[in-house]
């Protein structure tokens, strides 16, 4: 997993509530056995017409936002399925940070395990950042994870909260499994004393 420290990019506004995982990556694209290559189909239904041509009005098809690494969205982003293909698709497209009023639980976990930073902010601050983002190519934002700050295009600073363990893992690009395997003695001890499961 790549380390996350600071990120400076144009932010793409997607002011929709309840953006679900089928919107992020429809099920028909889940037949891959790899983690990569899903970016081409990110937001497939929103991005493309049925004949495969791009829908000009969709934010990530507009010239100013094609290389956005930050997405600003409505509440309950990532609701629905547990498919990790959703964060894989975002990451493969180049999105490294999503800012929204709230996220669905499983999506939240899946994203942090892939080095994507999810930032929760109150709706008023989202509205302000959305307005900023709509300014387009000249309006970059900087996210500093260590300081837990977003610096807007006008220099305004917004502080954000982040789970301390997730922050530690993101900043150091840590693999959970390696950390847990170091506790295998504790797991074995638990297995030895656990006799509830009598199958």
């Amino acid at each position, binding site marked *: 997993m790549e380390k996350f420290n600071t990120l400076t990019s144009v932010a793409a506004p997607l002011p929709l509530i309840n953006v*679900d995982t089928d919107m992020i990556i429809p099920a028909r694209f889940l*037949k891959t056995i790899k983690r990569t290559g899903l970016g081409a189909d990110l937001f497939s239904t929103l991005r493309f017409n049925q004949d495969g041509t791009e829908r000009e009005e969709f934010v990530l098809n507009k010239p100013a936002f094609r290389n956005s690494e930050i997405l600003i969205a*409505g509440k309950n982003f990532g609701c629905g399925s547990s*498919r*990790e293909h959703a964060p894989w698709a975002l990451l493969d497209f180049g999105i490294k940070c999503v800012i929204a009023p709230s996220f669905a639980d499983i999506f939240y976990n899946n994203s942090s395990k892939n080095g994507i930073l999810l930032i929760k902010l109150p709706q008023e601050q989202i509205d302000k950042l959305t307005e900023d983002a709509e300014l387009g190519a000249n309006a970059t934002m900087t996210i500093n994870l260590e300081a837990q700050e977003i610096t807007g295009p006008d220099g305004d600073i917004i502080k954000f909260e982040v789970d301390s363990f997730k922050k530690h893992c993101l900043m150091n690009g840590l693999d959970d499994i390696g950390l*847990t395997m170091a506790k295998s003695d504790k*797991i074995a001890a638990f297995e030895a004393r656990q006799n509830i499961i009598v199958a």
Partner: protein
Amino acid sequence: MNNATTLYDKLWNSHVVDEQEDGTCLVYIDRHLVHEVTSPQAFDGLRNEGRNVRRPDLTLAVADHNVPTTDRDKQIDDEESRIQIEALERNCTDFGVELYSMKDIRQGICHVVGPEQGFTLPGTTLVCGDSHTATHGAFGSMSFGIGTSEVEHVLATQTLLLTKCRNMRVTVNGTLPNGITAKDLILAIIGKIGTAGGTGAAIEFTGDALKSLTMEGRMTVCNMTIEAGARVGLFAPDEKTFEYLKGRPKSPKGAAWEAAVEYWKTLKTDETAIFDEEIVMDVSEIKPQVTWGTSPEDVVAIDGCVPDPDRETDINRRNKMERSLEYMGLTAGMPMTDIKINTAFIGSCTNSRIEDIRAAASVIEGRKVAHGVQALVVPGSGLVKEIAEQEGLDQIFIEAGFEWREAGCSMCLAMNADKLGPGERAASTSNRNFEGRQGPGGRTHLVSPAMAAAAAVKGHLVDLNDLD
């Protein structure tokens, strides 16, 4: 000090292996269901690091999302689907995991198979790389969906790093009337609390109306907990739970069974336990439900009308409603029963068990599918299919003009060949009405099995009371 705990607290506390300073816990996982879509990258991860599956004996695999529901003797036409299913077979062989292959009668949707085999047990923690894993909470098992990184974590360590959910309780009081099913109850609950209402929560379901449900009904309720935003949905185990599990292939036997039941009886919320949030409803408020939009919270009673976005004061919500109506091709104020359908789908981990199939068959018997409607029944497992065939239900469906299929996820998420075309509209017993869920441009109305069967007969959404 109040030491009273909820059922969820008890399940959580009995599985904590280690607690970090920040409160994150390492939690032991007793049961792991694996399917073909969310596992290949996890097995590859193990291979790359030279790791094994820690407890293959606690792991069970079955292909369900991608499998064809037509003739199984032929090779799978879709190359990508075939590769994914072959990858699961290879991974299970390489890592020593038990697999129900496509030709095994026990094959089916993992959330149907787990309980059916007695793999799902009260008091356990159970995970699967699928958000509908909450289904198993019907047995008093702390069950939840996980992503592929977490699948790999469980395979390697038999644990997960978790933060505890808040406690939420949904009580539905009253006597369940005829014609109101588990599906109507959970859709009404989602309509009330919203698709994000349960975010961060474990929901315990209680109250006379909910407790009166059969195990299969309870599974339907817990299955859709995630559509209310909650990863975990729970019922306290009771005599119905024990009766369902007794004698199942993987259930405990003999003295172990007796000991297990004694323990399972302790798995309930203490009377004085306090929940972070309580929702109380009365079953008399609830009519048969149907969705009109593209989120499971977009529900109305079948005798209601498509809602009017102009009456919505929240701008974000109004925008979403307008978008949904445009996608669904509906106009505000239209009676729900005027909505014509092209397809009726009876299946999915929500509603593909034998009671669901019986309920649909009882509506269909002696009737015919309306002209121009494609109707299909996809049983939840090979064993459900076998029971239905022993009861002659397959013939009732076939004579009415339904297609009688092999077990799998099928049109619930349109990964295999079963899908809606652009603009096609379905009455579906599945769990999600998201844009494109049942095929690009497809339109979904979520309903109970009896309502889907009735819609197939009439060619439009219909109130069961109006079925002549």
